[in-house]
């Protein structure tokens, strides 16, 4: 009996253990040097990542409120990988930070929240996980303590999150009112598509769309991404989004299956305007973090396209794309964090002539941008191709043509950055930066992921075999 709790909640227990360890270190008497702590914590996170691959047991707990299957283990492993890479790339920024331990405690708390969120089988646990994963991030957004922009970002994030959670809860309560249960399985049996339930769905959809920055719920994104410190932006734009997308997919395909025709149309419209607005605004950005924010909004539009396909291909292509999106974005953020921490430069104009002084970093950033644009031989091509294929499966070629045309627009703004790095001359390029070991490891892992994932089809086949929801 107790064994069940220990084994099924294995990933959660490991995170809780690390959090408590960090708390003890914090309140303990000994003064540790930042570098020692960083190396130690990264080893712990690596251990956490590797432990996620072993001894995964499927099952249900708390009467189905918490459930786990192989797909959820895959998703948790992806989140673990993401957090490990974020921690690696945050090294140059954290090295001089006073509140190193608080950073990791908050970060791991959000991870814990995400784990509960994606394993939830009940709206209550889902909401618990959602809140646990968003409130600490608002505190994290404030971690550039000497910058006013950072506090502003944190305020915007917490207030918008609170508002969107309120709307989500409203939808949840209407859903409970019409179906009489909070458990996903039971709700799905009582969805009839009457007006009240559709309104509940719309409210819940609004709450989700806020978290994944779908237009028109994206207004918080650019300012928060720009103001928060770069590793936190990376975490928000990649891992937080990924976790919410996982549970979003699961909820859409299981709970709301019967009103699929209605939500298909909603997703269609949302996707079109998201891709359009994301692309149009990304064209005009000069700040790299803001640029990546808008480009990630456009990517989410593509993900919605993939989501709309029939179950198996849709889920498989979305998860595959999220994995590649993780590698590509983290590679880009790795370079940006390093440059921002060492040289304090964040705009595209500052990056002109970057290739002359920092060839390795330039290539990492360039390959990351190519992967985001969807150019072979990087894995981003495969990710985008499969997403568009999943979307085309329903025969909605208007959507497919629109997405394909928008790939060209996105290609333009990604190439603009590549052009600045490789071709534009600069009198004062960013000076040569020596890359510390940990970020370099992160960049190499991301490079390997971006280049090899496309050719090693077993990754996709494994995801596909699990995507039976």
């Amino acid at each position, binding site marked *: 009996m107790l064994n069940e709790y220990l084994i099924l909640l294995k990933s959660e227990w490991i995170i809780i253990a690390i959090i408590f360890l960090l708390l003890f270190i914090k309140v303990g008497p000994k003064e540790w040097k930042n570098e020692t702590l960083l190396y130690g914590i990264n080893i712990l996170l690596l251990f956490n990542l590797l432990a996620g691959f072993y001894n995964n047991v499927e099952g249900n707990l708390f009467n189905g409120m918490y459930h786990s299957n192989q797909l959820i283990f895959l998703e948790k492993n992806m989140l673990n990988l993401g957090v490990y890479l974020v921690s690696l790339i945050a090294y140059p920024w954290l090295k001089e930070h006073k509140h190193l331990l608080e950073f990791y405690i908050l970060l791991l708390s959000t991870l814990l929240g995400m784990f509960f969120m994606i394993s939830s089988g009940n709206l209550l646990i889902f909401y618990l996980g959602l809140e646990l994963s968003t409130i600490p991030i608002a505190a994290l957004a404030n971690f550039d303590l000497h910058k006013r922009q950072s506090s502003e970002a944190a305020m915007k994030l917490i207030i918008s999150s609170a508002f969107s959670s309120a709307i989500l809860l409203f939808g949840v309560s209407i859903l409970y009112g019409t179906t009489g249960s909070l458990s996903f399985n039971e709700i799905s049996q009582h969805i009839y598509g009457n007006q009240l339930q559709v309104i509940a769905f719309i409210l819940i959809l609004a709450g989700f769309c806020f978290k994944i920055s779908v237009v028109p719920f994206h207004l918080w994104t650019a300012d928060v991404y720009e103001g928060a410190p770069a590793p936190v932006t990376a975490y928000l734009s990649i891992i937080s989004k990924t976790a919410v997308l996982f549970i979003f997919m699961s909820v859409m395909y299981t709970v709301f299956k019967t009103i699929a025709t209605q939500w298909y149309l909603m997703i269609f419209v949302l996707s079109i305007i998201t891709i359009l607005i994301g692309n149009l605004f990304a064209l005009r950005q000069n700040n790299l973090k803001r640029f990546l924010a808008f480009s990630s909004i456009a990517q989410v539009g593509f993900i919605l396209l993939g989501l709309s396909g029939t179950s198996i291909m849709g889920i498989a292509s979305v998860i595959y794309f999220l994995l590649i999106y993780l590698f590509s974005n983290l590679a880009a953020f790795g370079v940006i964090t390093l440059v921002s921490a060492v040289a304090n430069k964040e705009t595209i104009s500052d990056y002109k002539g970057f290739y002359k002084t920092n060839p390795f970093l330039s290539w990492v950033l360039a390959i990351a941008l190519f992967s985001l644009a969807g150019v072979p031989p990087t894995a981003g091509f495969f990710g985008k*191709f499969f997403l568009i294929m999943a979307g085309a499966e329903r025969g909605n070629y208007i959507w497919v043509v629109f997405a*394909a045309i928008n*790939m*060209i627009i996105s*290609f333009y703004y990604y190439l603009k950055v*590549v052009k600045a790095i490789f071709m534009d001359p600069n009198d004062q390029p960013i000076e040569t930066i020596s890359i510390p070991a940990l970020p370099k490891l992160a960049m190499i892992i991301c490079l390997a992921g971006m280049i090899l994932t496309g050719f090693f089809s077993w990754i996709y086949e494994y995801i596909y075999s699990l995507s039976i929801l």
Partner: protein
Amino acid sequence: MNLTLLLLFPLFTAFVILFAKGLKQVRVIALIGSIFQLLLAGKLLMAYYQIKAQGNQSQMVFEYIQNWYAPLHLQYHIGVDGISIAMILLTAFVVVAGILVSWKTEQLSKEFFFLLILLSLGAYGFFISLDLFTLFFFLEVAVIPKFLLIGIWGSGKKDNSAMKLALMLMGGSALILVGILGIYFNTHTETGIHTFDLLLISKMNIALPIQKIFFPFAFIGFGVFTAIFPFHTWVPDGHASAPTAASMFLAGISMKLGGYGCLRVATFLMPDAAHAYSWIIILLATIAIIYGAFATMMQTDLKYINAYSSISHCGFVLLGIGMLTKTAIMGAVMQMVSHGLMTALFFAAIGMIYSRTHTRMVSQLGGLLKAMPFISSVFVIAGLCSLGLPGFSGFAAEMTVFMGSWQNPDKWFRLATILACASIVVTAVYILRAAGQTIMGPMVNKEHELLTDASWNEKSAAILLIVGIVVVGIAPFWLIDLIQPGTEFIMSKLGAVALVK
């Protein structure tokens, strides 16, 4: 013979280049790699003849299939027929010539040769692919190297041209993507699964309404690569701003990717739609031919002259494909090979002149024959091939296209053929004027008297391409015999064109 070797060789060469140090090592490695590739292509030709002599009648030889993404039925499926082999040989010739011409590239030489080899890898992969996904993959592999090559090593308004080229080619790719997805989801094998496999799809009959929707996407998408009329605007700036080897590759091979795609994907897989839309194709092709020719007459920059003339010559390829007769399609393939060699030679000559005189404007050049006889002769040979002088490949190819086009009895198509023939006069005007003014006549700039003639690498590049042009020009039957079975196969899908209306 394992076709994957054609891909592994360039990949290995590119990989070794990454570890080389200094220009000398890099260019020698690149040259050795590309010469090996040329020998491999020759060996492929020999193996093909051998296998045909043994009586092998199958359509595609040396096939190799490997499941890539089994759940989606995507395969790495490669194979060749005569048309593919002709294009592979063309690519090998042009790449060796391109590397020889770029022998003195000092700036970031490692990256330059790396990108060039990567570009050729994309082309080889494209020509051997028999699965639409693999084909699309290799088509797109080439876009980023082109962008970087023009943007970093180019001249003139290179940033603008590089971006325009990259975006328009991506636009073409986007249209092709929609086209092939349409084909994928509307074809089922007997077991009801979708497939991207070219040969399997060609055996299925796709419903005519579906064909009529997706044929324009696929054809115009590939057409963008071949500078089909409204989407040709990337060609002049792109070719003119690119460094010499990149121009040679762009005009010589990259534009043929489109032609090959139009033939192998659009026309082959959707023949009924090809019949229905042939009048639009011929209209656009004729406009390209005539407009390209007239626009060239106005140009004062040598590279722009060659670029616009490429639009005109590639119009012949589309004209041949649009006419849908066997001779016309054979002419289109011959024109692809011939124009590839010829325009590479022309760009090589212009590049040699530019690197010495630092100007490409016709008005500032004159009497170069006195100072640089070899280069001038190469220039004149390229020009004569362009205007279709017999003895060179241009004549054989254009003649075949015209004869094939005339076979189609529709009176409007015959009018198009007549107009296309008439454009040869315009071609002659601009070629003779450009050649006459730059090569012959009085020397405009006194400093040009001190210029050196071609060095060994430039001579080798030119001779290699001239050999190709002359062989195809004097003995076109070799090329015709090579591509005939492939063309007949395509024609069998197209059915008998209604010759009597």
